[in-house]
């Protein structure tokens, strides 16, 4: 049985996506896959039980049979934090090991996902490197490459890991198109010279940062007025329609796949957005648009979402939503798998994990 722990220095670096993509790929290759996110930090309610959002999603998407309480044995509840601060012994190590034994039974490989950042869980002695050591597994570090500062972060992570023996290697994720050359010519050789194996350089992909119309409806607590059969359409950007209509249409045309946020009373902006064929309209202030506009939106297959909040608060929510979306859609999973296949040295990784098929 082989295993690897996927860790990152920051949240939203692509750990879940990588686990999911690797899981799908390894399954395709005929391996029996197990998955754990030992420490759940994104608590949600699943049929009355607390669970972690990421691990619940991946469990479903990979079709795993293991019990949720083994996939994520430790949930970061407030009680747990308080107990840890007061020094109450919770036998977390035992829970971790017991779950790991259960999950890894009859599996060829177990993918472990870290909680948040690399140091997350340190107060319970369960930071990613500590978990890796306790379970005797290696770590795979995934880092978003936005600028050369990412190199600093990687080297810093290495110091946190201390025993660099347990680091299998790293993957640079979401590399902007204009930095790809710099990364492959300078960054990768630099890291490898330091003995850090780079398993992949994955370019930025706007589709993966996108959110579906249904996610927007859900997160903005909105009401879908028309276009309910386009709920799974993906939105990559958002634009704010607060200018005069002549400029608005130019602005909308330049941005493909955008959602337009505007007031429910701005029928001119709404029509400009429909004319520019944007992905969806988010109307703020709980102001119902006119029937004629709705009719035109429906005809153009553009979903219209009505939200209660004002434009400013809606922008804030959208800002957070786009790029931080959980992977739920089939198309996105397909895209992740494609990207991993194309840009990650899977065979090298398999060899590193000690799987010999």
């Amino acid at each position: 049985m082989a295993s690897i722990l996927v860790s990152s220095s920051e949240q939203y670096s692509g750990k879940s996506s990588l686990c999911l993509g690797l899981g799908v790929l390894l399954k395709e290759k005929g391996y029996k896959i197990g998955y754990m996110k030992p420490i759940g930090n994104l608590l949600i309610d699943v049929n009355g039980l607390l669970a972690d959002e990421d691990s619940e999603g991946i469990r479903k998407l990979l079709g795993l049979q293991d019990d949720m309480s083994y996939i994520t044995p430790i949930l970061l509840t407030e009680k747990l934090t308080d107990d840890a601060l007061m020094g109450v012994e919770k036998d977390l190590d035992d829970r971790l090991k017991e779950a790991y034994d259960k999950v890894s039974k009859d599996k060829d490989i177990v993918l472990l996902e870290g909680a948040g950042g690399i140091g997350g869980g340190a107060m319970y002695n369960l930071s990613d490197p500590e978990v890796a050591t306790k379970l005797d597994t290696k770590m795979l570090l995934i880092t978003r490459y936005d600028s050369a500062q990412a190199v600093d972060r990687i080297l810093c992570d290495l110091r946190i890991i201390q025993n660099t023996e347990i680091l299998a290697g790293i993957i640079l994720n979401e590399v902007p198109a204009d930095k790809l050359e710099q990364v492959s010519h300078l960054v990768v050789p630099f890291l490898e010279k330091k003995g850090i194996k780079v398993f992949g350089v994955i370019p930025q992909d706007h589709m993966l940062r996108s959110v579906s119309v249904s996610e927007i409806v859900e997160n903005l607590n909105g009401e879908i007025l028309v276009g309910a059969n386009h709920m799974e359409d993906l939105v990559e950007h958002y634009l704010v329609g607060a200018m005069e209509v002549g400029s608005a249409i130019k602005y909308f045309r330049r941005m493909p796949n955008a959602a337009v946020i505007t007031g429910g009373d701005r029928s001119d902006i709404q029509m400009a957005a429909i004319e520019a064929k944007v992905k969806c309209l988010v109307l703020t202030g709980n102001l119902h648009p006119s029937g004629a506009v709705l009719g035109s939106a429906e005809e153009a297959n553009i979903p219209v979402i009505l939200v209660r909040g004002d434009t400013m608060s809606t922008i804030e929510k959208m800002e957070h939503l786009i790029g931080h979306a959980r992977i739920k859609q089939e198309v996105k999973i397909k895209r992740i798998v494609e990207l991993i296949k194309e840009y990650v040295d899977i065979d090298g990784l398999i060899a590193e994990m000690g799987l010999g098929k």
Partner: protein
Amino acid sequence: MLDKLFNPDVVAVIGASRTEGKVGHAVLKNLLEGSARKIIPVNPKVTEILGLKCYADILDVPEKVDLAVIVIPAASVPLTLEKCGQAGISYVIVISAGFKEASLEGARLEREIIAIAEKYGIRMVGPNCLGIIDTSSSLNASFAASMAHAGNIAMMSQSGAICTVTLDWADRIGVGFSKFISLGNKADLAENDFLELLKTDDSTAVIAAYLEGVKDGPRFMDVAREVTRRKPVIVVKSGRTAVGSRAVSSHTGTLAGSDAAYNAAFRQSGVIRANSLEEMLDYSRAFSTYPLPHGKKVAILTNAGGLGILTADACYSTGLAITSFEDVTIAKLRERLPEAAGLYNPVDLLGDASAQLYEYALEILLDDPNVDGIIAIVSPQAMTDVPAIAQVLVDTIQKSEKPILCNLAGGTRITTGEKLLNRHGIPNYPSAERAVASMKALCDYSSIKIKEHTNSVVMAVQREVAQKIINDAIASGRRTLGLESIGLLKAYGIPVVQSRMAGSLSEAIQVCEEIGYPVVMKIISPDISHKTDVGGIKLNLRNAEDVERAYFTMMSDVKHYMPNAQITGVQVQQMITGGKEVIIGMDRDPQFGPLLMFGLGGTYVEFLKDVSFAIAPINDKEAQHMISSIKTYPLIAGVRGETPSDIKAITDTLLKVSQLVMDFPQLMEFEINPLMVMPEGKGCLAMDIRMTLRKE
């Protein structure tokens, strides 16, 4: 086409009602008041209305029905229309409201009835309309309160209320119509269809329209261009301001399109734009009444000096000429007019002028070949016999081949005179300014009517090269193109400045050496559209040192202003001096398509808004018109002994851009900014471009 719509033999009223005050009753009654044609009420609840046998269902009617007027709740219209189709009815007027103008549910119903009409080949007026009136066939298929008087003005309106208002106004002053069409939601038949019909309609001399938008812009231009060669078309287009256009969008679910595009489209197709209903009606009456003037030389005849001066001012400011009379005219006037009278233009007959004096003066002025038209002003002074003068005006107008527009000014004391004019179908313009505006419309149309429209010349271009540049960009997912795509212009034979791309500083220096100093350096980034704003343009770099310094400042400035911008590199260009900067642009208008723009370049352009527009494709004349109609044209043409710029080169570039944007509908926006125009004979050079593409 549409003959049986305006002159049906058998008309069914579906939803006819016995109850007075109901629309279904009014329509039936109006139809019955027209000429003898078979009218069939349909209503399942009654067996007889107004003495006519009433059928329960349109499918029960034994006769072949030519026109069905539907006056039932919106929700029932689809089924009824389906039945009309089965009954083989070709024309339908849907008066019922509750469609797209009302609600989402209504919008769905409207889509449904459009599909049904298409399926059966039914041509449909409305929904949500007042109906139609044809005075020549004596058809009133509307719920208007009264029948229109017969006349030669055809009126169509996108607003039912404006129909009602116009009919009521016309009734009071006796203005007549040939056809009256309430367009409603224009689900099927729209302005273009009716324009085509009215083009050859002998009873129609003038077409007036109130529109909130046009359904098919390019076809509107084609049709209007044809129609306006035969008869004048006057349009009031509402929603010209931001708030107005918002109301139009909300009301109709269409994007109004820019007012500049409407102005350009109307000008290019010979449509006269009125700014208000009042203007539309004033102009319509002028066209309805008067022969066209042969030129714009106007004589003003008045019995009040002040009004004469005001009229002269108004003429001058609208561009009409205050004519100078021939010597013989002045001599003849002097014979009979009082000594203190004004003999030159304006001709002031003085306050005590009699009807006979008016008659004499009118005759002399009409005889003068320097007079194309007359504005006759009558003020009700103590000794003025207004009705007698009005009679003189009527008599003279009826035999005159030149237009004489009347302004009986005043209130109570001109009423009789005004009524006399109206009784003879002659408008009285309540103010001199309104008379002048109508005279201007008559003059404008005289030149519209004789304007030859030549198609634009197709130029030899490398279309495949341009196609490849666009295809490649679309394939790589890019929506905005900049300098890196300047090859597109080359392919269309537009001269471009010598320039090269560089990915790094060392490459940039090498390129500069090759091009030769001084050079200009510009940032290349798909995310940056206003390079100057982010420090993305460095001018007049004289050596490698300059280039190095400029490169570093540029990169750090751009990063500072737009930290997330993707930077592909820099573009190095020859530094060009000695020319004038102009802009050529295009925005694809939602209604009319490619709207070309021309203006003088430089920092103040956006502020001054001194630009001209035209809808592509344009011909040579239109290109020249675009250039010469900006206010700063003299700066290009050369002021105070300056050498004029190469206007021919600009014209040529405009024509090539026109062809480019017609060839590639994927181009949503396009701008050459600046186009450096050299002195006459030295050509022009495109210095920078910006484009937005649409996914196919």
